[in-house]
């Protein structure tokens, strides 16, 4: 039984880890080439997916891994306020989470609201605010240190 789980899990990781790590890196706002926090976050999330593999067979493993990622990120969001030089580092952790779920992952508004625990109209408001923030300030390629100091 353990071997079967390990096999299925391995196949799942081979297919989904790239996309999940990209999402995690967007959340922690790290650059794609240097993302230790995202890697640590995703490792913990995937460990949980592995442990629950048999107990929650009827659910899509990608969906519940994504939900666990969102939940874990939301719980530890205070750690990710620092500017690290990622694509979304102008946004707050909550704005990043909503933007990643809504736009990158294409999760429906109601479902996003349920995952985060906010009313759907708040999610819509935060999402459109984040979109306009991202569009208003064109991406500058100043190093993170400079931006943090200014």
């Amino acid at each position, binding site marked *: 039984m*353990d071997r079967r789980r*390990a096999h299925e*899990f*391995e196949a799942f*990781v*081979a297919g989904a*880890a*790239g996309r999940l*790590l*990209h999402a995690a*890196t*967007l959340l922690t706002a790290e650059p*794609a*080439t240097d*993302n230790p926090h*995202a*890697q640590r976050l*995703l*490792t*913990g*999330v*995937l*460990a*949980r*997916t*592995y*442990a629950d*593999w048999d107990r929650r067979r009827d659910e899509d493993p990608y969906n519940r891994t994504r939900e666990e990622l969102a939940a874990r990120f939301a719980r530890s969001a205070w750690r990710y306020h620092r500017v690290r030089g990622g*694509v*979304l580092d102008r946004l707050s952790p909550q704005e990043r989470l909503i*933007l*990643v779920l809504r*736009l*990158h992952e294409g999760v429906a508004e109601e479902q996003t609201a349920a995952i985060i625990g906010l009313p759907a109209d708040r999610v819509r408001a935060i999402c*459109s605010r*984040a*979109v*306009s923030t*991202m*569009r208003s300030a064109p*991406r500058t390629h100043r190093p993170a240190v400079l931006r943090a100091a200014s």
Partner: protein
Amino acid sequence: MNGPERKEDEVRRLMDGPHPVVPADLGPRAAAIGARLLRRHRIARRAWLLLLVAAVIACTVWATVTEPWAVPPSNTTPPLEGW
């Protein structure tokens, strides 16, 4: 395409930039931690079950020894009437 959708698409493209490389050991490491988690959960569940069984056995033994449902012999004699 209308305004908000176009804006969202723009941000989507922005987010779709360079993808990080997945380290080869990320999956195996997660599986190892997950296996440890699973083992710990199993041990905890087994301990609870054992405790439950022990409690049931203890309760049964105590009940058969003391028979708490038996009515204790009365201390007073019933009044003698009608003779």
